[in-house]
């Protein structure tokens, strides 16, 4: 059987030649993403701003305007209604009820009773109600978790490699998260707790490629002490290219399936990780590696520690 080789043997692509162009593009994309996130804002779900969401299923197709008119008449506050895939499944989102921060739940019950009265056979499939207090905590916790994960991983990389690699990992992560945030701000896809879980996953998985490439760079730094840094990076990237492509493809195949035919409740999670893997693959080549050049990593940068280790090994 002839085996599939997506990447031919002995590639010799000059990745680093375009590093400044890639940097410029990445910078622009990051700035655009961040400004989108700031000015347009994320479509934050009730998990983070409080409020109530009801997911209703109807037996007959229902027109959105008709549903909106009837929901408005219930006096449950300003409802935002969205069809979920077809005209028989809708998501009705209601603002936080007035009153103390601990008040919740009032309106979901109202809809639960009212919808089957208005539409025969209608069913409330899911109802969520989050008070302002809880949503604030969830938002704080999520931001903190993402921050801790980024710093924790950067510290681990620093500890396992050198400080320049730690900085590279941190910048790569910041880039990946900013881009994914920008995507969510641009598409107005709702951001809920599952999407935060996806962000944390991206932090773990988008660094996968970076770790593999860094490992190869470290190996080559030891092996080819006379080689200049740019060719050395190119060599490392080419050597790991086949693996980068194959792994990214398997992960994307699995996530693509989940995104296309998986449960729609976790569509946001699936698309976020999918995107994170694509961005992570790019940034492992064009962010993680060039950063080492800018931070002045030279083939002999770590020679001193190497020699010391060697000496210790000999005496031991």
């Amino acid at each position, binding site marked *: 059987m002839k085996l599939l080789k997506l990447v031919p043997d002995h590639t010799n692509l000059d990745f680093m030649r375009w590093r400044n162009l890639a940097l410029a593009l990445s910078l622009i994309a990051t700035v655009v993403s961040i400004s989108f996130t700031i000015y347009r804002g994320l479509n934050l779900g009730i998990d983070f701003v409080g409020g109530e969401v009801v997911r209703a299923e109807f037996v007959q197709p229902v027109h959105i305007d008709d549903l909106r008119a009837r929901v408005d008449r219930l006096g449950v506050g300003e409802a935002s209604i969205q069809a979920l895939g077809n005209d028989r499944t809708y998501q009705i989102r209601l603002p936080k009820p007035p009153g103390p921060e601990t008040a919740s739940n009032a309106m979901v019950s109202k809809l639960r009773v009212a919808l089957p009265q208005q539409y025969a056979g209608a069913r409330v499939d*899911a109802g969520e109600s989050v008070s302002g207090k809880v949503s604030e905590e969830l938002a704080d916790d999520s931001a903190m978790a993402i921050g801790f994960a980024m710093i924790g991983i950067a510290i681990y990389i620093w500890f396992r490699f050198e400080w320049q690699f730690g900085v590279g990992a941190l910048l790569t992560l910041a880039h990946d998260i900013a881009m994914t945030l920008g995507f969510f701000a641009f598409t107005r896809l709702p951001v809920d707790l599952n999407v935060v879980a996806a962000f944390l996953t991206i932090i773990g998985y988008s660094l*996968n490629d970076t770790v593999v490439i860094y490992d190869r760079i470290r190996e080559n730094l030891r092996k080819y002490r006379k080689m200049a840094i740019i060719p050395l990076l190119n060599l490392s990237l080419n050597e790991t290219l086949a693996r980068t492509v194959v792994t990214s493809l398997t992960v994307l195949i699995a996530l693509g399936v989940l995104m296309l*035919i998986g449960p729609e409740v976790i569509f946001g999670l699936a698309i976020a990780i999918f995107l994170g893997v694509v961005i992570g693959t790019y940034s492992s080549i064009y962010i993680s590696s060039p950063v080492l050049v800018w931070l002045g990593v030279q083939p002999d940068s770590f020679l001193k520690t190497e020699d010391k280790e060697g000496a210790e090994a000999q005496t031991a």
Partner: protein
Amino acid sequence: MLEFPRWKVWLIAIVIALGVLLSVPSLIAGTPLGASWPKWMPQYKISLGLDLAGGSHLLLEADAQDAQKQRLQAMEDEVSTELRRDPQIEIGDISTAGGRLSFLIRNPTQVDAAVERMRNLTKPLALTGTRDWDVQVVDSTRIVMTPTATGSAQALKDAMGVARDVVRRRIDPSGTKEITVITEGGNRILVEVPGVEDPEALKRLIGQTARLEFKLVDLSANPTDVQQGRAPPGSQVLPMAQGGGFMAVKRRVMVSGDQLVDARQSFDQDGRPDIDLTFNTAGARRFARATQENVNKPFAIILDDKVLSAPNINEPILGGRANITGGFTVQSAHDLAVSLASGKLPVKLNVIEERTVSAELGADSIHKGVIASVVSVALVIVFMLVTYGRFGVYANIALVVNAFLILGIMAMFNATLTLPGIAGFILTIGAAVDANVLINERIREEIRRGRRLLDAVETGYHEAFRAIFDANVTHVISAAIMAYFGSGPVRGFAVVLLIGVVTSVFTAVYFTRMLVALWIRRTRPRELHI
């Protein structure tokens, strides 16, 4: 490389067999096969999260102000009871305003004695040396009792423990349902009830404070004053539960709901729903004495500071049994009976978060999740096969074994599978082959460099392991942080990722290495097709 001792082969085989065996009950649950699984086999099962099984999730928070108020009231009762004891000390102008209890001692010579007796009412707190209340004398005749911060914290902690048990008894009086009731973060209770899709009944049941008190009606009160909310000293004005209006009752409690051993819904002689109460010995004795002393006087039955009814005491009630009526429906009488029997909720609880999912939506999610998992696994298997041939087959065997191991370990720890957990499962499937990709690509590379077959395989496994290890540590860091900060479904996702990291290193590195070693030893291949 080739030296793969027999015991290691056996060990790996046993681990895999165990994983498969443990995962089977979860896989066949709900199918006809489920019933035929032998009883002597392991029965561990993965439990489904509420987002897959359907049910209600409630997060309750203690109302701190209410807790403080109740504590002051309880202390007020204790103080009046204590000072009425012989030698009696007369007090006046008692107030609980400003979060502290203060009262005047009428006879200045008794102030020191009163302070002494108040100090005895307070309790020392373990280890800190402070007491739960601070007793001070102000303006030489006024005693002020302030709850200390540590005292309040301790009281809240105790109250939450009681509240948790009360909530559990209220939702599940028979103690047979699979519900979760746990305290969280000091002042919260998390309630998860599978199968309940409308949480309203649940909330009504939990929310009832159900503070039941029997007090004598103050007949000396002037009716006009009572309607205007003014009561004679030692009495208080309470609203009627039905029909409006007010009634003056003595402050002193004859007997309270704390002293019940049982309460159940039944019907009175006219067929109206009522509640039968049974007091414990102490309660029965108090009730008997109070009714003996007050024959032909009315007493008020008070629920949550509202007067339900005020029947006349026709004869002393000695058996420790009573029944209360008050315009109940069968349902409300039943709910109230459950609340009374479960004990008084020591603190008011507010619902601050609520999520429900119907069983239909949950089943739909499982269905779609299973299909997506199967399709992903199939596609990844085909992809690995066409890319790496024989080594792809090994990676695929490892992949399938890995899937069973994840399920088996989850079943063993009775972990909860949530909807994001299914996503975590699929992601793990996609990412777990990464280890094999790393190894196989490295072997290809070493062969291109001209190494001999055995040497190339050896170097491939050895050199790839470093990167595999580091990459997996980064996964563990992010998943562990997720498990720590995340709640419910997200934690379920993190748990699957964590288990997947461990099992995938085992299957992708050790297990495939064994397969490769056994193959090479058996066939002694001359060249490698990879």
